[in-house]
């Protein structure tokens, strides 16, 4: 079963991420099983599935927060290997937003956003601050630039985390359950920012349980279970007519809770 999942409905866009026969183990535990997945430029992919299905692990292999043992991963033309230089090149082009925000608590909001451009992109501080302000403005945190992460709400922190990733001007954004640690009233403000980002044509891969958001934004839905891609389909098809039993059962559960 080495069918390559690729978005035929976006066939005009070049492929920017390619996972080719990717396998990963934690000790004896087989977490990713024969993943063949292509993501095209400007494509929005939402990955869902029960917990422990390997969806977070999958996106974390894309910027080498997790190492894979078999297969090839090519991101923006660079093959991921053990070579640190390669990894750093890819990380510069791939932004990531975490479930727990992971802002740097000892740095002000502004410094959190400028630290990447200044130290990794070697941008002059002035220019980095201008960019930081513009992104903070976009996520609605402009006036709080001089506060510290601990002084902001969860939703605000997550929006800063998005601004921090965007300030590196990445080609791809990865979202690892960005709203799962948030209070219900703050989920919307984060999803709004993500929606806007999608509208501007960013290539996005999101692991999320927010099916309303997925239905609205996703081009492609991926359903994973036990380390495998069980169902891969254009979003419309996925929600109206899921093929696999496991996928149907999961959607039932998550949509009718």
């Amino acid at each position: 079963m080495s069918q390559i999942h690729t978005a035929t409905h976006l066939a005009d866009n070049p492929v920017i991420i390619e996972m080719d026969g990717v396998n990963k183990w934690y000790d004896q535990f087989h977490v990713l099983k024969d993943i063949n997945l292509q993501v095209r430029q400007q494509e929005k992919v939402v990955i869902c599935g029960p917990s422990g299905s390997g969806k977070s692990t999958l996106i974390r292999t894309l910027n080498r927060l997790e190492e894979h043992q078999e297969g090839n991963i090519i991101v923006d033309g660079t093959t991921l290997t053990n070579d640190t230089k390669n990894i750093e090149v890819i990380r510069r082009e791939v932004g990531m937003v975490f479930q727990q925000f992971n802002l740097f608590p000892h740095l002000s909001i502004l410094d959190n956003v400028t630290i990447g451009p200044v130290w990794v992109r070697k941008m002059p501080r002035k220019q980095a601050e201008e960019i930081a302000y513009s992104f903070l403005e976009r996520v609605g945190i402009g006036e709080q630039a001089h506060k510290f992460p601990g002084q902001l709400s969860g939703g605000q922190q997550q929006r800063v985390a998005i601004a921090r990733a965007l300030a590196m001007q990445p080609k791809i954004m990865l979202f690892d359950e960005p709203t799962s640690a948030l209070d219900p009233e703050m989920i919307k403000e984060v999803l709004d920012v993500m929606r806007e980002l999608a509208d501007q044509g960013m290539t996005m891969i999101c692991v999320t349980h927010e099916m309303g958001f997925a239905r609205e934004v996703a081009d492609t839905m991926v359903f994973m279970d036990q380390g495998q891609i069980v169902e891969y389909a254009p979003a419309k098809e996925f929600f109206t007519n899921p093929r696999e039993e496991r996928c149907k059962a999961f959607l039932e559960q998550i949509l009718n809770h």
Partner: protein
Amino acid sequence: MAEKIEDRRPPVTSTGTVGWVRANLLYPWYNALLTVIAGWAIYSAVKPFIQWAIINASITLDPAVAKEYSGAAWGFVRDMWPVFMVGIYPEEYRWRPAVALLIILALVMLTLVERFRGTKWLYALWGCSPVAVFLIIHGGFFTGLEVVDTHYWGGLMLTLILASVAMLFAFPISVLLALGRTSDMPIIKSFCVAYIELVRGVPLITILFMASVVLPLFLPTDMELDKVLRAMVGITMFFSAYLAENIRGGLQGLGKGQYEAADAIGMSYWQKTVLIVLPQALRIVIPPMVNNFIGILKDTSLVGIVGLVDLLQIAFATTSNPKWFGKLEEAYVFVALWYWILCYSLSRYSQHLEKKYASK
């Protein structure tokens, strides 16, 4: 509709000083009893000391007059305090350590001024200060000052020099050791583990002996290593191992998410370490680190064993002076007071740092 309730002040009898005394000292009756008993116990324990140190004490500079008092002869301290400060450093050059002290105090003052804090020139001045202090106290080189060999260094001055040098060098060494111990590189890691475990497993006295007795056996006979320098190396080696373990605690106390966030931005190992990991890890370990620094300061008193005359050894030296023979109690109280002032200042400074960083 519910009416808005205005804020009211709490009742006086249950808060504030009155409330505290009532709640903790007097109520119920057995607490009042305990208060009385404890008060009496404290009084009877402290009373003899007060009598000796203040009521029956003398401050005359004449030992013969001092003999008429049953209490402490503080005239001894008045007479000998310069020796406590600098040991047998030649009398005519005592102004030099004083100038060195003034330089450091001036720098501290400048640092306290908000406007100067964090400026580059102030960092530069602090960076130069150890060299300046050394040149003034030691003399020689291009300064035109008479050389005062480390053999003549002693007293509080020697204690402070040993402690500051040890802190200054042990800190960066221990950071590297801690990073090495937590790194993935097997050779570096095993070297750091071996060093830390070896040095921690040996008492400081042993290391001082090794540095002063064993080390010269391995060096050519015509090459003589300075005694003070040997002690410095020994103390620095010893404390960098201890400090390293504390700092490692801080490194491991940091969430995995911080490392991942730094990685995800594309930072290199050193960028991640210097910009993200160390600033946070070192904040976590301020209290144990200051605890270590206090330990360094007090443990420098062990250098007496290898023949250096630090603040504690001066107490022995001065009391064998025929003029004030046997004034051991006064000398010990004076020396203890100095150690306490220094350690307590360090401790207060650490509390200040903790508060400063807790708000962020």
